[in-house]
C-alpha cells in the first residue's frame, strides 16, 4: 500500500532532465540529417520518424520524475538524469550504427519493461523489505536455475556462445544478466543474516581469522555453480563480473582478516577449477586469442591456439577488432568526426561491445571522458546513499554496494578492453550498449536504488 503522499518539487532533476531530453532529440535529428545529407537526399521528411524514439525516452523519464515528486522524495536528484543522459547518448549511437529496428527493440525489450519495474519499485519501496524477508531464496534459485538451463538448452549464437534461453513463443532471454542481480541480492541477504555469526565465531590463526566453513558453503556453492554454467556458456565476461561482485561484497561485508581468508580460499578454488577446465574443454582457445590480441593487436605473427597455427595472423584475426577501435578513437580526436561522418561500423560489434569506441570516434574524447565522469558520479551517489542510510539496514547497504560494483566492473572491463588497457571480455556498458536484457536488469537496479533512496531525508535547513 503506498504511503502518505506529499508532493515535492525536484528542480535540479527537472533542469537536468530538460537538458537530457534536448540532447536526445538533437542527437537523433543530427544522426538522421547527417546520414540523409551524405546520401544527397533531403533530410526533412525523415526527421519526424527520427524524433519518435527520443520522445518515448523523454516521456518515460518524465513519468519517473513525476513519480518521484509524487512520492515526496527530495534527495538524490542526479541519479535519474544521469541514467537518462547515458540512455540518450546510447540510443543516439545505436540509431547511428544500426537500422531503426534496433533502437525500437532496445526500447520495447529493455527500456519500457525496465521503466515499468522501476515505477513499481518506486511506488512500493517496501518491496525491498519484502525481497529481503520473503523472496530472496526464490529469486536466487530462479536465477541460478535459469542459468543452468541455458547452459544446457540455451540458444547458440554466432560466436559459439550460449547466452539466451528460449522458452516456447517468448523471445530469447539473456539469463547471464539475471544471475548478476540474483547474486547481489543473495549475497546481500546472506551477509546481513550471517554476518554477526561469522564474525563472532571465527577462530584466530595468527593475524588471520578463519570463519567456520559451514557459513560459506551456500555462498561458494552458489557462485561456483553459476561460474560453471557460465563457462559452459562461454560467457567469460559474466564470470569476471560474478567474481568481482563476490570479492567486493565480501570485502564490504566482513572485517578484513576474515575477508582475506575467504578471498584466498576462493581464489585457490577457482584457480583449481580453471586448471581442470583447461584440460577438459577447449575454452582456453578464446582466452588465448584475446590475450594475443591484447598484447599487440598489430602483430603479424600467426595466431597460435594450443601451440598450433590457426591459419590467420593476429592482426587479421582477433587483433583486427581492437585495431579498428584504436584507429577509430584516433580518427575522432578531441571533438570527434561528427555523428554520421566517421567509420564506426568498421569496428565489428560496434553497437554493443565497442560502442565506446564508436562514441570516441564520432563524438570525440571530450564526450568519452564526460561519460566516464557521469558513470563515476553515478557510482559515487549510489555509494553515498549506502553510507547515509540509518543504521541497521545492512541488506540495503550491501545491495547498493553490489549494484555500484556491478556498474563499475562493467565500465572498467568494457572501456578497458576497448582502449587496449585490458583484454577483451565481451562485457557491455550499462545503458549505452545495445542489449535488451542487460538494460532491463540495469534499470531494475536503478529502481532498487531509487526505492532505497526514499528512506533518506533531506538534511534539515
Amino acid at each position, binding site marked *: 500500500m503506498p504511503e502518505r503522499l506529499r508532493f515535492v518539487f525536484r528542480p535540479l532533476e527537472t533542469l537536468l532532465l530538460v537538458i537530457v531530453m534536448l540532447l536526445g532529440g538533437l542527437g537523433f535529428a543530427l544522426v538522421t540529417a547527417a546520414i540523409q545529407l551524405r546520401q544527397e537526399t533531403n533530410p526533412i521528411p525523415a526527421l519526424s520518424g527520427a524524433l519518435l524514439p527520443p520522445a518515448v525516452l523523454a516521456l518515460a523519464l518524465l513519468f519517473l520524475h513525476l513519480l518521484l515528486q509524487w512520492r515526496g522524495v527530495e534527495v538524490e536528484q542526479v541519479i535519474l538524469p544521469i541514467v537518462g543522459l547515458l540512455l540518450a547518448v546510447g540510443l543516439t549511437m545505436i540509431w547511428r550504427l544500426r537500422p531503426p529496428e534496433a533502437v525500437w527493440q532496445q526500447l520495447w525489450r529493455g527500456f519500457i519493461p525496465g521503466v515499468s519495474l522501476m515505477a513499481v519499485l518506486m511506488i512500493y519501496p517496501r518491496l525491498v523489505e519484502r525481497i529481503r524477508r520473503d523472496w530472496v531464496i526464490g529469486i536466487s534459485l530462479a536465477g541460478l536455475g535459469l542459468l543452468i538451463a541455458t547452459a544446457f538448452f540455451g540458444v547458440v549464437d554466432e560466436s559459439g556462445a550460449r547466452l539466451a534461453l528460449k522458452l516456447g513463443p517468448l523471445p530469447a532471454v539473456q539469463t547471464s544478466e539475471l544471475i548478476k542481480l540474483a547474486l547481489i541480492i543473495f549475497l546481500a541477504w546472506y551477509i546481513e543474516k550471517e554476518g554477526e555469526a561469522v564474525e563472532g565465531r571465527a577462530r584466530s590463526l595468527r593475524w588471520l581469522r578463519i570463519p567456520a566453513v559451514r557459513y560459506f558453503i551456500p555462498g561458494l556453492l552458489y557462485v561456483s555453480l553459476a561460474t560453471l554454467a557460465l563457462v559452459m556458456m562461454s560467457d567469460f565476461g559474466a564470470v569476471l563480473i560474478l567474481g568481482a561482485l563476490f570479492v*567486493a561484497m565480501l*570485502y*564490504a*561485508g566482513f*572485517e*578484513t582478516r576474515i575477508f582475506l581468508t575467504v578471498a584466498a580460499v576462493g581464489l585457490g578454488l577457482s584457480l583449481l577449477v580453471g586448471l581442470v577446465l583447461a584440460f577438459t574443454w577447449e575454452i582456453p582457445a578464446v582466452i588465448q586469442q584475446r590475450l594475443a590480441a591484447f598484447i*599487440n593487436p*598489430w*602483430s*603479424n605473427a600467426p595466431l597460435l591456439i594450443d601451440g598450433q597455427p590457426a591459419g590467420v595472423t593476429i*592482426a*587479421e584475426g582477433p587483433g*583486427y577488432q581492437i*585495431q*579498428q577501435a*584504436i*584507429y*577509430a*578513437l*584516433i*580518427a575522432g*580526436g*578531441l571533438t570527434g568526426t*561528427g555523428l554520421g*561522418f566517421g*567509420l564506426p561500423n*568498421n569496428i565489428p560489434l560496434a553497437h554493443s561491445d565497442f560502442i565506446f569506441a564508436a562514441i*570516441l570516434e564520432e563524438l570525440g*574524447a571530450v564526450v*568519452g*571522458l564526460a561519460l*566516464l*565522469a557521469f*558513470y*563515476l558520479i553515478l*557510482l*559515487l551517489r549510489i*555509494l553515498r546513499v*549506502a*553510507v547515509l542510510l540509518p543504521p541497521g539496514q*545492512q541488506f540495503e*547497504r550491501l545491495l547498493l*554496494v553490489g549494484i*555500484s*560494483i556491478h556498474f*563499475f566492473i562493467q*565500465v*572498467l572491463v568494457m*572501456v*578497458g578492453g576497448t*582502449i*587496449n*588497457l585490458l583484454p577483451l571480455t565481451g562485457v557491455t556498458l550499462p545503458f549505452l550498449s545495445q542489449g535488451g536484457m542487460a538494460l532491463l536488469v540495469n534499470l531494475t537496479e536503478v529502481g532498487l536504488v531509487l526505492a532505497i533512496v526514499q528512506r533518506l531525508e533531506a538534511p534539515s535547513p
Partner: protein
Amino acid sequence: MSLTQRIWHIVHVMLVVVALLSGRIVYWQLVRDQELQPVVLDPVAAAAQYRALGGDEAIDLMPLVTLEALPQPVIQRTRARLAEVRRGVIYDRNGRRLAYDYETENGGRVRFYSEPSLAHVIGYVSGLRTGVVGIEHSFNETLLGLNRFDAQLNQMVYQPVLGNDLYLTIDSRTQRAAARALGDRAGAVVVLDARTGAVLAMASQPAFDPNRVLDESYTRSLFANCDAAADCLNPFFHRAVQGAYVPGSTWKTVTLIAALDTGQASPETVFDVGPPLRDEQGSYYVYRIGGSEVVDRNHPDRVLDLTRAYLVSANAVFGRLGGEMDPAVFVDYAARLGFSRGETLPLEISTGAAQLANDPQAIYENDFLRAITAIGQGELLTSPLNMALVVAAVLNEGDIPRPHLLQAVRHPSGDLLQAEPSGNWISNTMRPETARQVRQIMIAMVRDSGMFSNMLPGLTIGGKTGTAETVEGRPPHAWFIGFVENEERTVVIAVVVEHGGQGGIVAAPIFAEVADAAMNHLGEPVQEIVPAPVAVE
C-alpha cells in the same frame, strides 16, 4: 573498520580506475596519434611506420609502394579520406593537363596521366599506390590542399577539400620531341632554359606507363628480363637526374673552363702533342704522366690550338692541361661546376650527385687519374642534368641558375599561391670573360664540324660531342651537350644514349631534333597520344 570506511576504500579504487581509463585515452590521443593517422600524406613514412608497428619486413620499397600491405583499418580510412579530397591537377607551362583525376563508373577515382614520357618527372599516385619519386610525391601535401587553412576549415564543416593545382615548366612539344628522338634507346634528354633554369623537357628511357601501373601483370612484365642483374634496365630509374654515366669528352668543357679561367691557357694557345706513334689501328698521340699514357686517336694534326683541340677532342692536349694543373684548382673548378659537392642536384624531385672520383683525394695524389679525368674518363660519373648545368654556367657569365620544374602553385580558384622560383644555384663559377671565351669555342666546335649545317637556320648553336668509354666489350655512351640561342631565348640541351656509340653520330641528331622543337615550336599544342578517359573530371 566500519562499512562506511570500507565503502570509502571502494570509492578510492573507482577513482583510480577512472583515472587510468582516462589516462589511456589521453595516451592514445597524444602519444600515439601521429603514427596511426590515415595515410594520406607520406607513403614512405607509412611503410616505415608499418614496419615499426611490428608488421611485415617484406614491404618492397621499389619506386612503387603499395599500401595494400598496411593494416586493413588504415586502408579503409585512407580510402575514405582520399574520397573527400579532389587532388590538384598538374599542368604544363601552356595549361595542358598532364595529371588529373577522373571518376570511374563505379564511383572510384583514378589518376590519369596524359604524357607517359613524363612518368619519372611527375611520378605516380593512384589511391593506395604511390610512387616515391616525382612531383606527385614531392608535392603530395600541396596537391591535396591539406596544408591550406581554408581546406582545413572545409574539412571541419564536412565539405570536400579541393587540392591546389601545379603548373610545371615543361613544354609538351619539346618533351614529345625529346621522347621521340630518344626512341627505344636507353638514355636521357634534358632541356633547360639557360637563363632561368626552368626545365622545358626531361625524358628518360626506358620508361613506364603510369596509367597501367595499377596492373600487377604490367608492372611485373617490365622486369621480365631482369634475372641477369647487370643487364637489367630498370624502367623506374630516372636517368636524366640520377643516371651516373661517364661523361666522356663533354667533360673537357670543365677542363677548358678551368684552364682559361686560371690563365693556364688561352683559346689561341698552341700545343705540340709530340711525334705520332703507330700501331695496327693507325697513328696516334700520347701524353705521358705518372708512369702511364693518355692515348689520343682523335685527330691527325700534331700541332693545334686550344679551340681546335676542343673541336677534335684532343685527349693529349686536355690530358696535359689536367696533368699540369694544380690539383687543388682542378678539384675546385670541378666543385664549382657541380661535381663532388657532397649534395644532390637541386630540383623538386629526387636527384643524384655527380662524382669526380671514387676518392677525391686521389686527384691530388694520382697524376694519371687527374689527367684521365680531365679528358672525361677516369672515375667520373655524372647525369645529363649535371652536364646541362655546366653549359648553363657558360651562357650566364658564370652563374648556374637553379634548375626547377615548378612554374606556379595555384589555389583551385586560380589565385597564385607560389610563384616560379628564381635565383642561382652556384654563382661566379668563372669570370664573365672566360664564359664568353668558352661560348665562342663551343660555337666554333659546331660551326667548324659542320654537323648541323642545314638543320637549324637562324639559330646560334654551340656544343660538344662526347663518346665515353665504359666497360670492355660494350659500346661507349654517346653524348652531346650544347645550347641553342635566338633573340627570344637560350636553351641548353644535354643528351646521352647509353652504350649508343659515337656522340656525333648518335647523340647529335637527337640534339638537333629537340632544339628544333624548343626553339621553333615552343608552346605549340600536341596531339594526345593516350586516349582520354570518358568521364573527364
